[in-house]
């Protein structure tokens, strides 16, 4: 918590945008697991991180969203868990060039605990393995993101906290008519309370709806706990285009409202982050 407060002392931080589409622009095929590029094409992954840093990201993530061994097993890369995660951190650190913090991304296993597809022990072990590799490679903090199930997030949080690094846990509120529930039905209040109880350093929302819907999510997360809030809205949904300026205007309002970290998820690019960083800079100086 102290570490996070130090980073935030000068004000909220602009984070990065989507990586998957940026990697596709650099040749990632539809059938390829983006994380496998940490080993196959590290220089192209680094380009994405560097593009965000140059656009004004003060925090960049790692290309390790699917790099827990349960998710990697789906593409036969389970044995490469340590290598993929270590490489992911090394690449982003190089891209950050000391000018941005590197928060290492941890995504869901893709399996549901409630239906017995995986055991809590297996989930905990998978996240422990990933978190350890990310920490050993020198990540500044760990970001557990796009979570749906509060119990899975709790297991990930427990595993991540063992590394001693600051840990933020972020949920995807993409379900329900108002886009205020996760796929498993969790509310922002339930997510925030779990995060606080389980010792997270920050709580957040990412993916799901566009930035306008995030104002209400932010208000509810904020009211339910006193942790710093991390927000990464989508730029809209496929087929519903949002311009980088429209996105930046709503995202900057989230910063103004008191969010600690704001960036973008699906549909955003370095252009979106540049527009946001410009507005954020204007906010601070005015």
């Amino acid at each position, binding site marked *: 918590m102290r570490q996070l407060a130090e980073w935030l002392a000068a004000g909220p931080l602009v984070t990065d945008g*989507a990586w*998957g*589409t940026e*990697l*596709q622009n650099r040749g*990632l*095929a*539809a*059938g*390829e*697991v*983006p994380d496998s590029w940490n080993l196959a094409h590290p220089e192209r992954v680094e380009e994405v991180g560097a593009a965000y840093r140059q656009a004004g990201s003060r925090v960049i993530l790692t290309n390790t969203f*699917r790099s827990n061994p349960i*998710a990697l097993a*789906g*593409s036969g890369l389970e044995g490469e868990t340590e290598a993929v995660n270590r490489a992911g951190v090394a690449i982003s650190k190089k891209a950050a060039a000391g000018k941005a913090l590197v928060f290492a991304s941890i995504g869901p296993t*893709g*399996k*549901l605990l*409630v*239906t017995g597809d995986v055991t809590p022990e297996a989930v905990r072990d998978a996240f422990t393995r990933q978190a350890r590799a990310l920490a050993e490679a020198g990540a500044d903090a760990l970001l557990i993101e796009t979570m749906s*199930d509060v119990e899975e997030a709790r297991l990930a949080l427990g595993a991540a906290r063992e590394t001693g690094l600051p840990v933020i846990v972020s949920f995807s509120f*993409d*379900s*329900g*008519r108002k886009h205020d*529930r*996760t*796929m*498993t*039905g969790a509310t922002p209040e339930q997510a925030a309370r779990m995060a606080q109880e389980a010792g997270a350093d920050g709580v957040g929302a990412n993916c799901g709806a566009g930035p306008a819907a995030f104002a209400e999510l932010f208000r509810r997360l904020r009211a339910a706990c006193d942790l710093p809030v991390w927000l990464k809205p989508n730029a809209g*949904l*496929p*087929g*519903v285009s949002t311009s980088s300026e429209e996105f930046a205007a709503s995202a900057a309002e989230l910063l103004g409202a008191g969010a600690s970290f704001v960036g973008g998820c*699906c*549909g955003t690019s370095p252009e979106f982050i540049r527009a946001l960083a410009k507005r954020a800079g204007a906010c601070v100086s005015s």
Partner: protein
Amino acid sequence: MSDFGGLYDAILNGDQKTSVALTKQALEEGVEPMDLIHRYMIPAMDEAGKRFECEDFFVPELLLAARAMKGALELLRPRLAASGAEPAGRVVIGTVKGDLHDIGKNLVSSMLEGGGFEVTDLGADVSPEKFVEAVRKTGAQIVCLSALLTVTMPAMKTTIEAFRQAGIRDQIKVLIGGAPVTEQYAHDIGADGYGGNAAVALARKIVAAS
């Protein structure tokens, strides 16, 4: 004869053990499989669907209900086949190439099975060639494609293109679904329909119309 209203509750509550035990008991007592399906099983799944619509149920509850239904249905299947009952329709389903997400796909698959469809589930990360092969083998009328990532959505288009090249596009209806998928996207890539929350109703409508 006993009352098997408990089967309705067991399915709605996602209690597979009880749904299977009650179905076994019902069959032993000579209850007609079709009776069980129409009086308890389909109404239970319809109620689960309604609860999902009004946000009382979410994906896990629906998935558990579908599994309880499936467990019961598996006991009935040999008898239904023996009596010559035709499935509601034949479906091939899978998550497209490059996408490993299968929660949504499993849900739709289970719901379709619960709705009386014969479902061939190809799993996740399925190549266009595999889809084509499965349609040829099963004679499916419906193909359901799932993708959860914006980066894998283009594989839906590639798969539809593969059906066209194989000359089987006109024999099938292609339904697409998944978090980032929209009606507009379905239209853009030449799919026949988009299933938000109502895949089963959509599939029934298509079979009825064809």
